[in-house]
């Protein structure tokens, strides 16, 4: 019964979404309030139906209803309780449901929030969002139906991919999809603004906050993905420039560009066309990413299920790109800039450069990812460019971006005077140079790492300088230091939220540089009772024991580790054997640290336990990535807070009149 019920719910949601989209558009054309109300009810209906779909599928998972093919493919009777719930988004069909459901949720928020405040833009926004929902519901109906019936009903399912039995897999897809779907809202508002012809600034303010939210979730998704890769896959890395990762990274880059260039539009009435282009690009890249990874045209180690879904996404992508850029062309005359650039040494140019580099990074990632396709089409040779290409091209770009991160927030608008430059940058540049020199003195030899450290010190100094000045200015009005700092962060939450995000990025940059430059590893076969040494650690192989879990058996190695001061820890890396798998899967064990992680992977072992092969890695500064992610979270939260009302009577110091 469940498959049929689920399918019926999906089709009903599709019909409602198509109707709602049409009704919202027609209500906008004819100005009919009754149709508008009807389309809102349709949006609520779509959300209710999709919620019912999700709950039904969760119920099917919890009750082991193997008449549903998706349940039988992604779970078995041994799968632990919580993984039976998260198995919902363990594979393609369920991910699409999750995607559609989040989209319908965002649609509801748009209805609730903008129904009264944006009477002109809102009906079109609703029409676009319901139209986009229709596409995902169509995918759920034809190429990737989650409720397909399986007959005959098997006694047990195949089981969840063992690699997905991890806490990272519970949160990573949710964050990533909240990011991906979040970009739908800015896109829908952009389209509405183009249709109505109100390309003024109100929609851009709405769009900015939504983009920060989507951007934040996407950042979180990327970081959790890195964490999952780090502690599950057992190769000791967090980023491999795999097509799947690149697919999520490209919209992140263009969205970051938008978040910066939108400030120029707000402030100087410039770059309207460019900002719209970035919104369209970001949204299209989220679709492109899904197409890329789901169509199987690019080989990836992630190797998702393939099927006709690729062609659906490609057609939809073509429709979105052609449609939205045609609308841009149609409204081109309304997108002229009202301001113009005054000087090369100005905040405008810093932001323009930032955009140029971010888009260039997105382009190089795109180029590297589709390079195998290009090469095969043009020259007929199968080639690929791997991590070395992406690193070589992107390291200079990201170093330049870090530099601009220091310049942008402090340099004056329009034209920076020599006095402005000296006042704001003399101290930070000195700090940067001293920082790099100190690193050199402590034995850092790698030029790129030195450069990175120097730039990070420079940027951190600009942030500290700005904050200190502003807090001091507030203190003169009588506040204590703590009150001044708090008040400042809350009063100018956008600016200081941005700074905190920058700090998070700096910490992540240090983590990337440090882990790339200073990590070390070895691999050895150790006899029971024997030891191996690496970087001050002595690792002794003590024991090997089997253990049985609900859905697999594992062989657990026990390794006691001591460092220079004595016994340090006991690590128990394992090999897991799943009955549905032909080969075992490593379960890494590690001890995380602020400076370095000790990371053990059990490679191979003798069945009598006499010896084991183990890969030992000392991964330095990897924890900084996760710490940076936490800082970034704080900053994004601060930036999303509603801005306090300005009190125009209170004059603000010159350097703080920004953002």
């Amino acid at each position, binding site marked *: 019964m469940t498959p049929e019920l689920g399918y019926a719910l999906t089709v009903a949601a599709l019909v409602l979404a198509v109707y709602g989209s049409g009704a919202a558009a027609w209500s906008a054309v004819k100005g009919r309030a009754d149709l508008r109300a009807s389309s809102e009810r349709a949006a609520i209906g779509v959300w209710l139906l999709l919620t019912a779909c999700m709950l039904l599928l969760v119920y099917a998972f919890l009750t082991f209803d193997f008449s549903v093919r998706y349940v039988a493919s992604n779970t078995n009777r041994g799968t632990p309780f919580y993984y039976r719930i998260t198995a919902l988004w363990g594979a393609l069909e369920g991910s699409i449901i999750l995607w559609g459901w989040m989209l319908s949720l965002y649609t509801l928020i748009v209805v609730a929030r903008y129904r009264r405040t944006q009477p002109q833009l809102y009906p079109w926004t609703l029409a676009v969002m319901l139209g986009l929902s229709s596409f995902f519901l169509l995918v759920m109906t034809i190429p990737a139906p989650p409720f397909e019936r399986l007959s005959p009903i098997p006694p047990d399912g195949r089981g969840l991919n063992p690699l997905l039995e991890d806490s990272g897999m519970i949160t990573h897809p949710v964050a990533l999809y909240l990011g991906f779907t979040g970009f739908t809202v800015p896109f829908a508002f952009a389209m509405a603004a183009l249709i109505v012809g109100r390309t003024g600034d109100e929609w851009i303010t709405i769009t900015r906050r939504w983009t920060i939210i989507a951007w934040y979730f996407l950042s979180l998704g990327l970081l959790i993905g890195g964490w999952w890769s780090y502690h599950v896959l057992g190769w000791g890395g967090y980023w491999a420039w795999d097509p799947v990762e690149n697919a999520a990274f490209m919209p992140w880059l263009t969205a970051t560009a938008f978040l910066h260039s939108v400030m120029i539009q707000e402030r100087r009435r410039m770059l309207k066309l460019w900002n719209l282009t970035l919104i369209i690009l970001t949204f299209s890249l989220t679709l492109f990413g899904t197409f890329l990874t789901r169509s199987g045209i690019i080989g990836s180690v992630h190797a998702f*299920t393939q099927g006709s879904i690729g062609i659906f996404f490609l057609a939809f992508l073509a429709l979105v790109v052609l449609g939205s850029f045609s609308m841009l062309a149609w409204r081109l005359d309304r997108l002229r800039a009202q301001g113009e650039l005054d000087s090369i040494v100005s905040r405008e140019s810093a932001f323009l450069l930032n955009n140029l580099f971010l888009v260039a990074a997105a382009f190089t990632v795109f180029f590297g990812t589709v390079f195998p396709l290009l090469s095969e089409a043009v020259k007929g040779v199968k080639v690929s460019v791997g991590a070395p290409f992406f690193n070589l091209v992107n390291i200079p770009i990201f170093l330049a971006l870090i530099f601009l991160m220091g310049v942008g927030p402090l340099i004056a608008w329009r034209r920076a005077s020599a006095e402005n430059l000296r006042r704001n940058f003399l101290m930070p540049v000195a700090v940067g140079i001293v920082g790099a020199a100190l690193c050199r003195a402590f034995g850092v030899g790698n030029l790129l790492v030195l450069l990175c450290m120097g730039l990070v010190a420079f940027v951190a100094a600009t942030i500290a300088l700005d904050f200190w000045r502003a807090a001091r200015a507030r203190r003169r009005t009588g506040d204590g230091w703590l009150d001044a700092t708090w008040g400042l962060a809350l009063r100018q939450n956008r600016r200081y939220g941005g700074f905190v995000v920058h700090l998070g990025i700096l910490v992540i940059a240090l983590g990337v540089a440090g882990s790339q430059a200073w990590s070390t590893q070895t691999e050895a076969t150790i006899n029971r009772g024997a030891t191996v040494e690496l970087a001050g650690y002595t690792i002794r192989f003590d024991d090997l024991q089997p253990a049985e879990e609900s859905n697999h058996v594992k062989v657990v190695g026990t390794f006691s580790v001591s460092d220079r001061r004595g016994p340090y820890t006991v690590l128990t890396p394992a090999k897991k054997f799943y009955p549905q798998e032909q080969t075992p899967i490593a379960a890494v064990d590690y001890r995380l640290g602020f400076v370095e992680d000790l990371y053990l992977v059990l490679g191979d072992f003798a069945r009598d336990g006499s010896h084991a092969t183990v890969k030992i890695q000392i991964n330095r500064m990897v924890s900084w990535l996760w710490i940076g992610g936490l800082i970034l979270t704080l900053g994004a939260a601060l930036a999303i807070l509603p801005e306090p009302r300005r009190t125009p009577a209170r004059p603000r110091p010159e350097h703080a009149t920004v953002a």
Partner: protein
Amino acid sequence: MNRKTKFIAGGLVIVAALAYLVYAGVTQSVVYFVTPSELGAAPVPGKSYRLGGMVQPGTLKWEPKALDLRFTLSDGKATVPVRHRGTPPDLFAEARGAVVEGTWSRDGYFQATTIMAKHSEEYKAPHDGSQAGYQELLKTLRGGEGKP
């Protein structure tokens, strides 16, 4: 030179530098994807390849003490001997597909630096063979180690 020209000129210089970076990146890091028969036809020592094929049954040799892994990749028409220093990765086994990255050695074998075995999101129903292997492993582990 007026402001606009300056801006455009500056932008062009940066774009040109980026284009050169991409060009240099591609020429330095391009890896040719070959099958065993393509590699066998014209191997160039020292050049980077990505070699894809099936691990021929009966050829996998793993010497744990020396961390020496040897196997033969086949595409049905030709075979290439491969050597690698390190443990075979998870998901890597005889009669399964694998992609190795590395260079052709003058001594007549492929020196792999990385071995990639395909991950798959959805799992196939177990073959009878692997199921038997799993049961056998369970038995050895329980019996051999005297698990209570």
